[in-house]
């Protein structure tokens, strides 16, 4: 059980908060969830979420992991993290309103302020998106 509310872990707020819960953390790995709300800003007219929205959800999932690590280290304010690069992103299908996204982040090496990570987004057991990201911490 993660003892923090999501807004204690990430600096993003409505209307662009794109993670509902940090579900699980282990060494270098985190799992986050988002229920795609019908008011989500990244929804298209057909009720599906854009790939850009999926990428923002992945980046905020990483941000939740960094926020958790900061809390564990005794820091209150969640760090600001920016996407530096998106590489090899694949969108296999776009999520729809009402679907629950579950995203696993695995962190790789950190060089200076930049952390490399990989991410996999699932709906139930179906992988819907994959990517590598470079996240810059400020």
């Amino acid at each position, binding site marked *: 059980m993660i003892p923090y509310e999501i807004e204690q872990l990430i600096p993003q707020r409505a209307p*662009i908060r794109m993670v509902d819960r940090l579900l699980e953390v282990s060494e270098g790995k985190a799992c986050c969830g988002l229920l795609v709300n019908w008011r989500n800003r990244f929804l298209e007219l057909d009720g599906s979420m854009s790939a850009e929205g999926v990428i923002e959800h992945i980046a905020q999932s990483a941000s939740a992991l960094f926020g958790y690590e900061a809390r564990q280290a005794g820091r209150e304010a969640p760090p600001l993290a920016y996407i530096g690069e998106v590489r090899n992103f694949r969108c296999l299908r776009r999520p729809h309103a009402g679907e629950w996204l579950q995203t696993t982040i695995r962190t790789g090496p950190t060089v200076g302020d930049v952390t490399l990570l990989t991410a996999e987004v699932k709906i139930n057991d179906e992988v819907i998106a994959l990517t590598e990201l470079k996240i810059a911490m400020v």
Partner: protein
Amino acid sequence: MRLENDYYTWTGQEPTYMEGVFRLRLQKDCPVYQGHFPGNPVAPGVCNMQVIRECAEQLAGCKLYVRHLKKCRLITVLKPDNQSELTVSVRLSPTSTGYLCRAEMRDSDCIYVIYQGELSREER
């Protein structure tokens, strides 16, 4: 939702066949800045990626979906109080399902985004 007239407004467009230069300005009062970040507005990188897609849609004349991003570099942090005109240069090349898209977003001082991806006409 589309970001046109919400996150940005056009100041000019020079489309030709499969490539174009688009000029725009960010809208400082876009609601996205209430949450990104409270008291510290920063243009979300993914919104700039969507601006590039909307420019590509102008060239293609249809709705496009991101299928694959080979590489998208968000080089410089962009703040909405930067009211200089932004230029988005886009070049498309056709594929069986849509277009390969190479694009760059910049102003007179800085490059903000370099984008290389595959946009599909097909919903999925």
